[in-house]
């Protein structure tokens, strides 16, 4: 089996190497991927949304549907993991494996270091979410940083102490809440007479001429959407860690 899989992998590598000459050279500005559609976004994204970070503009506005259902994928993954791993009460039956005796972690150094690091991580995570319009960042990146800060607390101290700050009920609610904020912004656009996730329909909420207000509406709606994504990603990261690390018992981590 090992030899067979090695042969398959080598054959695939050889086939891919054969077609290398047909692929565009690295850094070719005229390659098919770079020449056609992307120039439109680079030239018009600022005019239409006033967001200099084109990645954020396309992610949250032009491709809002894609991002919304991507958040939905994360939500569904958390629900699936919960359905598979979560247990309640005491182990039943002989099949549950013996758990080794619990050794509480010694937080002499890591605990103190975590106490210093976590606030800065969370501030930085909020900054990355809020400043995603102007610098590399956005809901996904900031959400991961926020989630990592909670996971760090759970890893260095007891899982219980992290769960006291963010209980199971809360992170499940927050995973759904993020998706709800995203979909809610889309629905709000419909209430104002536009299409789903067409943020320019929110223009009546903002001051200025209709055209300016539409741009401002897109700018602000993107921030709300990013905040929703941040909620979902942050709590889903912690949820995945918690269920995997405690094997569904929710009593102690790694």
């Amino acid at each position, binding site marked *: *089996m*090992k030899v*067979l*899989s*090695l042969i*398959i*992998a*080598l054959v*695939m*590598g050889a086939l*891919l*190497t054969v077609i*290398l000459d047909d*692929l*565009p*050279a*690295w*850094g*070719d*500005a005229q*390659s098919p*991927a*770079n020449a056609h*559609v*992307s*120039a439109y*976004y*680079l*030239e*018009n*994204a*600022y*005019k239409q949304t006033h967001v*200099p*970070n*084109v*990645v954020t503009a*396309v*992610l949250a506005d032009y*491709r809002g549907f*894609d991002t919304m259902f*991507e958040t939905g*994928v*994360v939500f569904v*993954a958390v629900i*699936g*993991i919960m359905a*598979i*791993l979560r247990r309640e009460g005491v182990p039943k039956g002989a*099949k*549950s*494996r013996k758990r080794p005796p619990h050794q509480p972690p010694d937080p002499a150094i890591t605990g103190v270091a975590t106490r210093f690091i976590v606030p800065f991580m969370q501030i930085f995570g909020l900054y990355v979410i809020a400043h995603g319009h102007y*610098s590399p960042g956005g809901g*996904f990146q900031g959400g991961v940083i926020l989630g990592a800060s909670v996971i760090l607390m759970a890893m260095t101290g007891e899982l219980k102490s992290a769960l006291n700050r963010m209980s199971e009920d809360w992170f499940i609610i927050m995973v759904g809440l993020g998706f709800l904020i995203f979909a809610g912004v889309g629905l709000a656009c419909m209430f104002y007479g536009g299409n789903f996730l067409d943020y320019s329909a929110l223009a009546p909420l903002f001051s200025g001429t209709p055209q300016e207000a539409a741009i401002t509406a897109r700018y602000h709606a993107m921030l709300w959407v990013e905040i929703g994504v941040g909620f979902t*990603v942050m709590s*889903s*990261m912690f949820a*995945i860690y918690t269920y*995997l690390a405690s*094997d569904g018992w929710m009593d102690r981590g790694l």
Partner: protein
Amino acid sequence: MEWLQINYNYLLVIVLLMIGLWAMIGKNNLVKKCIGMCIFQNAIIMFFISMGVKAGSTIPILNYTKIDGVKTYLTEASMYANPLTQILMLTAIVVGVATLGMALTLVQKIYSEYGTCEEDEILEKLN
């Protein structure tokens, strides 16, 4: 040698794809299969990101110049890397995390059921 210089990004991707595929097919341990899947995903991500590079360009965040104190953003497409591939891969990374979490969950469930992650041992216990 010149061929290597032109194509080294693709060659790196191909090597990673081979490692990932080999790990997914050939390894016996389910966790190692998951790691192989992760390497495979990352190879695809690197492929897409390297497709979006333009020589001499910077990240797709618009630069500005100040003319008489007024910010003017420069929207020349050739100045910036292709944003679309990066956005697509941002999506792929997140979905990759979700699938990896799901896969590891299933592996953990299999482990608590059979006491092992090795494929052949699981098959033995099944028969």
